[in-house]
């Protein structure tokens, strides 16, 4: 028994490749040998033997064994030899043979393939001889080649014809032959092209189905043989746009459409786009696009159309002056859009989207002034076409680019006139819509664009409605990502600042903000809490600027309704703060009634809407701060407000909070006023009591020192009023001294412990002492009664 072989297994492909190499080598060797005899016969001027051996040499091309790639190598080998043969025939013509004699003689060859190679070879000699009209010779050659129906052999024979006929075509172009016109040359190339394409397409159906993929790959390698004909047509200088539109293009398209093969159609349509001049495309747009509509369903029509549009767009970029005139004259845009619309209905969503993306790009690049209208047209058609389609994720991405492309090219304010923009957005998934909306907003913010009137603002809201409005269905409720919403809404909020009249018209700006509020309200509680406050602030800005009292009141009234919405979210603290803002502005504008209204509303929220005591402390602090900044309240109103504030301060739960709040209230009262000074004192004393109580509780329950800071703070208040008063109308130096002593006692016990709170208290205390000393220096008389212990 033999041991198993250790050599690596040879795959079928390797075997096939090796066979191919061998067959090719054999065929090449045979060509070489016959060529040798042929050349010998040429040297001996033996016409009969030349025919014999050249036929034998060309007979090698009859092989069916080689792959197209290998066949090409063999063809090139034979092609080289045919050059010498052609020269020989040329010489024979000088030696008494006419070209037509030779032309007949080569046709005696019994095998069709060698015969036709010889015929084409003599044909080129014949063409040069002027013995016959070039047109009839070309026609004869291209027709006779019909004898080869084998795809690969036929393709190469016709490639040979293409190569050798160039000279004839040139002669026609040089008008050497009166009987032959450019039309004849074109006809010849078209016919050869048609036949070659038919052969090329036929390759697909040759051989077993399982090798279809391999064959398609092989076919792809041969495509330039077919495309070459189009290159030749495009290089004929006498083929003007008229002939192109009436003959060349329709004929090419006829073949491309009829071959019903997607590989050929994809390649050839692109070939047409690439090889012929821009001007031709512009002037024959309809024909081409109509052809696109008739292509095979597997053909990528969208890609072809996009290719054309891109080519035109590039033309615009490279030669803006020549092209724009042409585009307008020939209504290129309109001629593209209508048929593209038709095509887009037949293709998938991604393909349709890419068509519209290309047209949009074209519209943007080419049509300057008219562009925006055109952009809108494209968008409208796009929305229409894809309305009922199943938009894939890829298509969505393309659609998104359709929506974002114009953002770079146009001012946002202009884009807002695009009525169909939101319609296209509707095609996207909610996430995508959000992304586009965010893009738009970011663009506005980045450029600082002002959206100057109600109409534009309304349309902007339409554009970004997806993030402004709450469009999610109930089921999605759980998925709500609050952080994301917050992020988005903050952007939206910033956007509000960009919405204002450019000429500072308050009416316009107010109308805009009113609209904003209306739209924001549709966003539901999750959104309004982020967006409405901005509206409030912006309206307040207007109020501040406005001198028209009536209008101010109107605006403030409007704010009332806005803040009410916020409070109902419920977002009471936010609403509360906003009310305070309003109070300040209203007070500033001396609109007492409005201010009072806001204050009552704020108080109402404080009482009913802020349950958390920490928040209450905070709110109260702000309220007191706010009230103390107001200066235009009438006595009664203010009394009511300040009393309420004081009352609430006393009601606070924690003694320390009470203390702080109450001594803050002291600032609410104007000490110049007799009655009020008393209230100040009440407040201060009340604060002191609260502080003591707090200290007492701290000591008894927890054994701690208690809030020394409170005492220091109260001392500061005392000092403040002591300083402000006239003489000693309110606070006696004695009272201050008592408090000072108390504080100094308390602080002395602090020094031992090193807790952080204590440090702070000490620092506070020392600062206070320093203040007193400086005051003593400045006002020695007033402060003489105060003595500092150490």
């Amino acid at each position, binding site marked *: 028994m033999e041991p198993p072989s250790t050599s690596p297994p040879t795959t079928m492909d390797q075997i096939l490749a090796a066979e191919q190499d061998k067959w090719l080598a054999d065929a090449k060797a045979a060509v070489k040998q016959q060529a040798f005899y042929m050349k010998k016969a040429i040297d001996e001027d033996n016409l009969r033997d030349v025919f014999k051996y050249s036929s034998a040499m060309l007979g090698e091309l009859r092989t069916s064994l080689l792959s197209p790639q290998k066949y090409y190598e063999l063809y090139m080998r034979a092609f080289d030899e045919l050059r010498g043969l052609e020269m020989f025939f040329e010489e024979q013509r000088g030696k008494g043979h006419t070209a037509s004699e030779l032309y007949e003689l080569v046709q005696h060859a*019994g*095998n*069709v393939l060698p015969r036709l190679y010889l015929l084409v070879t003599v044909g080129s000699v014949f063409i040069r001889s002027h013995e016959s009209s070039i047109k009839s010779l070309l026609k004869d050659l291209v027709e006779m080649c*019909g004898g080869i*129906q*084998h795809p690969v052999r*036929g393709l190469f024979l016709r490639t040979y014809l293409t190569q050798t006929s160039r000279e004839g075509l040139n002669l026609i172009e040089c008008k050497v032959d009166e009987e032959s016109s450019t039309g004849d040359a074109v006809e010849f190339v078209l016919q050869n092209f048609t036949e070659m394409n038919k052969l090329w397409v036929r390759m697909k159906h040759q051989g077993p189905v399982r090798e279809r993929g391999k064959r398609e790959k092989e076919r792809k390698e041969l495509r330039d043989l077919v495309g070459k004909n189009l290159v030749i047509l495009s290089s004929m200088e006498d083929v003007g746009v008229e002939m192109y539109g009436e003959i060349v293009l329709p004929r090419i398209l006829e073949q491309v459409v009829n071959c019903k093969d997607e590989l050929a159609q994809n390649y050839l349509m692109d070939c047409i786009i690439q090889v012929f001049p821009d001007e031709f495309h512009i002037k024959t747009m309809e024909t081409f696009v109509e052809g696109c509509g008739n292509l095979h369903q597997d053909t990528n029509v969208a890609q072809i159309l996009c290719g054309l549009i891109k080519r035109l767009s590039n033309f615009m970029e490279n030669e803006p002056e020549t092209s724009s005139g042409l585009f307008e004259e020939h209504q290129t845009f309109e001629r593209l859009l209508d048929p593209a619309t038709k095509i887009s209905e037949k293709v998938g969503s991604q393909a349709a989207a890419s068509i519209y993306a290309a047209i949009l790009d074209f519209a943007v690049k080419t049509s300057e002034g008219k562009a925006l209208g055109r952009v809108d047209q494209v968008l409208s058609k796009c929305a229409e076409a894809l309305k009922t389609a199943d938009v894939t994720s890829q298509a969505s991405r393309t659609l998104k680019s359709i929506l974002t492309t114009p953002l770079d090219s146009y001012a946002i304010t202009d884009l807002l006139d695009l009525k169909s923009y939101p319609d296209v957005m509707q095609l996207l998934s909610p996430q995508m819509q959000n992304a586009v909306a965010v893009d738009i907003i970011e663009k506005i913010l980045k450029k600082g664009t002002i959206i100057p009137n109600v109409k534009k603002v309304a349309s902007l809201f339409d554009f970004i409605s997806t993030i402004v409005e709450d469009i999610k269905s109930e089921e999605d409720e759980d998925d709500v990502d609050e952080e994301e919403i917050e992020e988005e809404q903050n952007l939206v909020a910033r956007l509000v600042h960009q919405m204002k009249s450019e000429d500072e018209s308050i009416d316009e700006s107010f109308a805009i903000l009113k609209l904003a509020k209306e739209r924001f309200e549709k966003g539901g509680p999750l959104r309004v809490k982020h967006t409405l406050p901005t509206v409030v602030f912006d309206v307040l800005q207007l109020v501040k600027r406005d001198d028209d009292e009536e209008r101010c009141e109107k605006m403030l009234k409007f704010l009332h309704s806005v803040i009410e919405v916020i409070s109902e979210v419920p977002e009471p603290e936010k609403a509360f703060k906003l009310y305070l803002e309003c109070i300040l502005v209203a007070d500033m504008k001396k609109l007492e009634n409005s201010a009072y209204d806001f204050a009552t509303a704020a108080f109402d929220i404080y009482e009913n809407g802020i349950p958390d005591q920490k928040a209450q402390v905070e709110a109260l602090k702000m309220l007191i701060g706010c009230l103390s900044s107001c200066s235009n309240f009438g006595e009664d109103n203010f009394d009511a407000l300040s009393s309420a504030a004081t009352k609430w301060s006393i009601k606070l739960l924690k003694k320390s909070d009470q203390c702080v709040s109450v001594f803050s209230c002291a600032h609410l009262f104007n000490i110049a006023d007799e009655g009020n000074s008393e209230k100040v004192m009440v407040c201060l004393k009340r604060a002191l009591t609260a502080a003591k109580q707090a200290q007492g509780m701290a000591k008894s329950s927890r054994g701690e020192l208690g809030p020394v800071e409170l005492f220091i703070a109260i001392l500061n208040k005392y000092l403040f009023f002591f300083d402000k008063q006239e003489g000693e109308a309110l606070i006696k130096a004695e009272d201050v001294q008592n408090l000072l002593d108390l504080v100094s006692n308390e602080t002395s016990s602090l020094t031992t412990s090193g807790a952080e709170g204590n440090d702070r208290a000490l620092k506070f205390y020392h600062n206070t002492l320093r203040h007193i000393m400086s005051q003593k220096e400045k006002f020695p008389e007033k402060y003489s009664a105060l003595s500092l212990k150490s």
Partner: protein
Amino acid sequence: MNFLGFKAPVTVGCELLKGGGVKPELVTVRSASGAPETIPLYNDGDTVSGAVTVTPAFGKKIDHQGIKIELLGQIETYYDKGSFYDFVAAVREVSGPGEVKEEVKYDFEFPNVEMLNETYNGVNVRLRYVVKVTIVRSYRGSVVKDFNFCVRNTTVLPEINNSIKMEVGIEDCLHIEFEYKKSKYHLKDVLVGKIYFLLVQIKLKHMELEIRRRETTGSGSNQYNETQTMAKYEVMDGAPVKGECIPIRLFLSAYDLTPTYKNVNNKFSVKYFLNLVLVDEEDRRYFKQQEIHLFRTEL
């Protein structure tokens, strides 16, 4: 004639001329043995004249019973060996019995001979024209010498020359329509035609056009048909699809053809056919044969 190794001590030569002493054109034809021979060419109605020279071997003389020169048109059928049929026979006695001692020259003339049939070398039959010189001898055998010449006749162009057009096929398999521009061709003609493929369900490999010659000899139960392929011309390579049209152009001058002969003296006929053959990948042959009429317009 050379019997028993005794060669007659005489050489017979013959110069063939046309009327008025004009030298005839020479043509090269294939002889019965297959070797080419170059012989004079005559047409129907030509005068066949010339001079026969009889030259005895040096220093010899021959006695004879007379010398005659015959002009014969013969049809020879091979299947019936040795059967000659003379459809033309004329004779000139140029000398009575006598003696030839030195070269003698005998002029002869057959004026305006009717030679309607053309020289033909077929498979089973041959038609030939000959000038036969016989030196009659009563003993040692007569001396007979043949001098072949060729006859070709031209005809005028036929007035009616229809195209051959026909649709043929195998149901659901292959349908073609072929069209040959003419049904009658002269021998230097070009056969032009087209093959349209109307339906192709089989995998064809190639297509060729054959010119076949059918020679019919004898009659009744003794009729013999012999078919030869005179030309084989590939016209298509590969498999066409429906709608393709294949051009055909065949130069007849490249082949050794004769005109169509119809019932020559009730002895034989020669007909020509175009045979279109389609070969599929399994080498099956599909064919359709059409008779064409060949004629001669120039010599």
